[in-house]
Structure formats: C-alpha cells, structure tokens
C-alpha cells in the first residue's frame, strides 16, 4: 500500500483509504474517489505540481499534498 502521490506516472492503482478531514475530504469523496476505485496517475503540471489523475473515466487534477492523503494499492499493468 502506497500514497497516491508516490504512484509512478502512467501507473494504475486501487484506492484503499482516503485520509484527511473536513470539506476537502468530502470533496474528494464526492468526486468519486471511494475505496475500491481504480485510479491512474497521469502527469504532473509543467512546474511539477499539481498532478493529473484519471478516475471513473474522467481527468481530475489535485495537488501532491492532497494526493498524499490517498492510500492506494499498486496494480501491475497487464
């Protein structure tokens, strides 16, 4: 189990747990990041932060500091 922020670019994983608290956590959950959801790490912005992730068929951008709160299980690409 690793932090989403540590997932290498282009790699996929499955959400295990969402940390953090309050409105930000609520927002992340509402955007569809719930346990068991598949995510793929896309790319970082040209300046290195935020990052772009693919979830539930759309693209979401979050900061690395927020990605650190999301725990994922790495999934090997077929």
């Amino acid at each position, binding site marked *: 189990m690793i932090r989403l922020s540590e997932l290498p670019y282009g790699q996929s994983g499955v959400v295990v*747990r969402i940390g953090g608290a309050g409105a930000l956590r609520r927002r992340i*959950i509402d*955007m569809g990041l719930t346990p068991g959801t598949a995510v793929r790490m896309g790319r970082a912005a040209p300046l290195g*932060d935020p990052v772009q992730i693919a979830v539930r068929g759309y693209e979401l951008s979050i900061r690395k500091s927020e990605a650190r709160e999301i725990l994922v299980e790495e999934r090997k690409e077929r």
Partner: protein
Amino acid sequence: MKKKERTLKFALAGNPNCGKTTLFNRITGSSQSVGNWPGVTVERKAGTARAAGALISVVDLPGIYSLAPYSPEEKVAHDYLLSGEPDLILDVVDATNLERNLYLTTQLSELGIPMAVALNMADEVEKRGETIDCALLSRKLGVPVVSVSASRGTGVGLLLKAAVETAREKASPLPARFYSPALEQAIRGTEEAVRTPCTRWRAVGLLEGSEPLSGLAPQARRKIEALRKTIPVTEALDLDMIVADQRYRFLGALCRSAVRKTRVSSGGGYSEKIDRVLAGRFLGLPLFFLFMLGVFWVTFGAPGSFLGDWLNGRVLAFSRFLDGVLRSSGTQDWARSLAVDGILGGVGAVFVFLPQIVLLFAMLSFLEDSGYMARAVFMMDRLLRKIGLSGRAFVPLLMGFGCTVPAVMSTRILEREKDRRLTVLIVPFMSCSAKMPVYSLIISALFAGHRALTVFSVYALGIVLGVLSALLFKNTILQGEPAPFVMELPPYRVPTFQNLRLHVWQRLKDFLQKAGTVLLFATVAVWFLQYFTPSMGHASDPSQSILAAAGKRIAPVFTLCGFGEWRQAVSLVTGLVAKESVVSTMRVLYPAGVSGSLAEALKAAFTPDSAYAFLIFVLLYTPCVAALSAIRREMGSLKWTALTVGYQMGLAWFASAFFYQWATLLRHIF
C-alpha cells in the same frame, strides 16, 4: 376553454462542463434576461420558453458536483434547489462521463422535487461505439431520462415534453435502491425519528452527520445516534464515506449494465493526446505564453487596431457630415456643439473600441469553452500559490484584462473568503480593456514610435505591482494556507458557435448600454460644464468654464506627478464614471486646433515623462463605479472596500509621482 395555466419553474442543475449552459441557450434562445460569463455562471440566469402547451421559466444554476456546497457559487445552486421554488429540477447529465454526473442525480432525486434527466452528449457516446439504455437508467433512478444533444438541438423537444408532464403531475422521483439493506433500514428509521415530513436527502444528512442533529428533539437525537451504530462501518469506510460509497457502487453497477459497447471504438483518448502537448512538461508553458501573447496581439495589435481605425474613420466621416448638415440648416451654435463635439465626439471616441472588445471576449470565451482554460489553471496553480492564491484565481485575473466587473464577480468560484479578498484586491491591476482607449490616445500622441513597447510596459507594470501587492497582503492582513485544489480537467471540445455568439453578445450589450447611458450622460455633463461659465454665459474659451474652475481646485494634487493641469485632472475624475470617459472628456476639453487632431493638442499638454506618469496613474487608480459596486458586493464589507479604494488611489499617486520625479531628476543629471 382551458383555465390559464401558471408558469412552470424549472431549475437547470448539473455538473460543471456538462453542457448545461448550451442546453439553457438552446431552450430559452434569445429570451434570456441576465447574461453570464464564459464557464462561470455567476448570476442566476433566467429565460422563458413554451413547450407542450405550457409556459416555462428556466433558471440556469451554477454547476455543482454534489449538494454539499464548497464555494459561494455552489451555495447559490444549493440554496435555490432547497428553497421550494422550483416545480421541477432539470438535471443535465454528461453521457460521456456518466458515473460521476449521475452521483449528483442520486442526491437530487432524494429532494422530493419532480425531476427529469437530460442525458446530454449521447451522440458523442455513440461516436465512441457505445449505446446507453435510457429506459434502464430511468427505471433504476426513478425519474424520466431523455437523450439529447444540446449542441445540435436534437431531443430537446421530447425532453421538455417529458419534463412538463412530470411537473404537471407533480410526480416526485420514485424511490430507488442506492443503499444496502442495513443502511436503508437506518435511513427509514431516521425518517421516522424526525416525525415532521422529512426528505430522504435530509434523513441521509442527519444520519451521516453532514447535517447537525442540534435542531431535533432529544428523543429523536438519541434514536438517530443509536441507528448510526447499526451501520456496518470499517476504518476505511467510515460514516462520512459510506453513503457516498454506496451511491457510487450502485452507479458503477448501473453504468456497467446500461452502457453497451456496440463496436470497437476508434480514435478515443484524443484529449489525452492533446494534453500531452498542451499541458506537457516541455511545451506546456511555452505554448501557454504563446497563446496569451496571441490573445493580446489579436486584440491590441494589428487586427484589433485595423478594425478600430476603420471604425474611427466612419465615425469621423459621420461627424463631419452631421456638422455640415447642422451648419447649413442654421441650427443654433450650442446645439450643434452639443451634438458634434459633445455627444458624437465623446461617445464616438469610445465606440471605436468595439471591435477590440468583441475580439477579446470572443477569444476568452473560446479558451473557456474549448477546455483550455482548465489546463491554464492547472499549469498556473504552482505559481499562484506563491502569491497565496490557488490556480483557480487565474480565471478572474485573466478576465480582469477584459473587464473588472465580471472578473470580480467570478471570484465566487473561489472556495475561501481569504482567496476571494486577495483576488479582488489585485484584479484591478490587470489592466481592463476600458483603459485601452486612454493608452491608445496618449501613446499615439507621444509615443507613436514605441507603440508596442509602451503598451507592453504598462501591462507588465500592472502585473508586477499586482504580484507585489498580493505578496504584501498575503504576509500581513490576509495570511493563511491557499485553498485546496481539486479540479476536473474536462475533455477538449470544439466550442459551439451559438455559445460563443451569446457570450460575446452579452458583453457587447453591456458595453453598448454603458455607452448609451453612463458615458452619454458623462460626456453631456462634461460638455455642459465646459460650455458655460460659472455665470451661465457661453465660455468662448474652455478655461473660463465651470469645469475649469472646479478642475483648478483638484489639479494641484497632481503637480508632483507631472500632470497638474486642470484638463488632465478633470479627465481623471470623469474616468471614475468609466475609464473610457478619460478619452471622451479630453476630446471635449482640448480644442481641436488648426490640424483638428487631438494628438497635436496632447503633444503640447504633456511631456513624454508626464505622459508616462499619467499612464501609470490611469493603470493603477480606482476602477470605475461599476467595478467599485462589484467590489463592494463581493467583499461584503465597507471596510474592505474602503481599504481597496484607498490602496489603489495611494499606490497610483505614489507610483506616478515616483516615476515623474525620478525621470525629471535623471534628465537633469544626464
């Protein structure tokens, strides 16, 4: 004969980027009453339409991802939906992003308000080689679902018919099975515990704790607390998470069965490919700066000024024609002067910037509708965080170059008050398009050889001082962490012409309204004050006029800045009404000499140093009254508004005096 039916009120709700505004434009056409701004529906826009024999009024709400509001803009949508006003919720769902869009649908369907779902962009899904089973969605969600294409206009008639029927029957959504038996049991228990009629949405909120229990009777409170313990939770799936998790589980299963692949798709993932370039590591930023330069070049460079010059020629020709007609028909001198020098000279001087305004807003709208603006926000987040803002603040700041009023209003997309205040404080430093006529006039008179460089330096100075001001406020009165950044990157789309046209038309209408009312009034007032002497005789020389007498009292304030002459001071004061007034006032005040050119008169009135100091002052000083009232509204406090005004005035005076004094000193030395 049938009894006259009352108007049905529809609330248009949905995620951002789901094509809601396109559908709104499609339904209401030209009957809209309030304009919007590209991408950010700031105001509650309303329009009317006729469908299935009913008169309907439609309110377009800001896009929301869930009923839990984060930003003030989302709160507008939330509050309106819960106000009991709408007869029906028209929920727009992006078919290409079904799962997440339907999440809001599951929440809306629990409000107990009649509802219909518009499954938008179904044609795009078909292009991907998939079909969506609308009947199945409708059955499982308990609401009518109609497939439409807002951009092409197909299916809208059927949608409205279904919606009108649902609203007439007052048919609330049928109960759907989103939850596990244990959770369902607990929700029912909560509904019973509250006793008073309670929507399912409220019961769920009370149970999961997003709605406080404090308003309830102690007995009900104890019962709900006991019910919470019956819900099987784990460490990862806690009480805050479980409702959302089960909604998404339900939707995952629903989408798997409702979306069918009919053929292997060809050419999907184009957004990903475009992103690799436009938001890519190496080309992303260079292309971003190139696009921004492109926007400015088209507006202020050759294309914009060509159109402006052309229009200017037309206005001048008409002015000469009118002058000739009035002279030969023996109209009184004062009436001719009012029409030609006052109204046509003043308003006409502003009118010639119409093409540039159209171009600028068309391009901003294009950037927004195409999806590129979200990428710009994505790329700018890191930089803006350094000045205490989040990437989202990029949108108001960029809009600031168009007009401060919508830019200030669009700060409602920011989640935190501190971010909103900071953004509002620095937006006016992004030189608005109304200041452009002033720059153009001064530059053509005094810096004709260095046109591009001078314009660039003024804009750059605004940005630099904006950044420095942000740093100042961030480290003093507006401390704190920047707001979190969770933002969707919508797929790239070709903007529809109708949306583009409506956006631009809205801005154009505002401008023409301003030209026809405020500016017209200001120019007539200025003309009047300069035509008459304090004893109400005709001032053969403007320096004998009422205006000159008043101007001479204010002018000394600007002596240190190098433009302490009464005409200059008066034009700056009228600039508070609208920045374009500076130009129209100058046109009225500076007597057109033998050559008849205002530039000649200005060349005599300014030195290059005082002219540049004047430009600095115009760049920085308090924006127009319209912007001030927007600032007052968004700041929500008189103290903050006063601070904003005081800061701008002070900085403008100090910066231009600083420049003028140093420039004078350096000229003496060298």
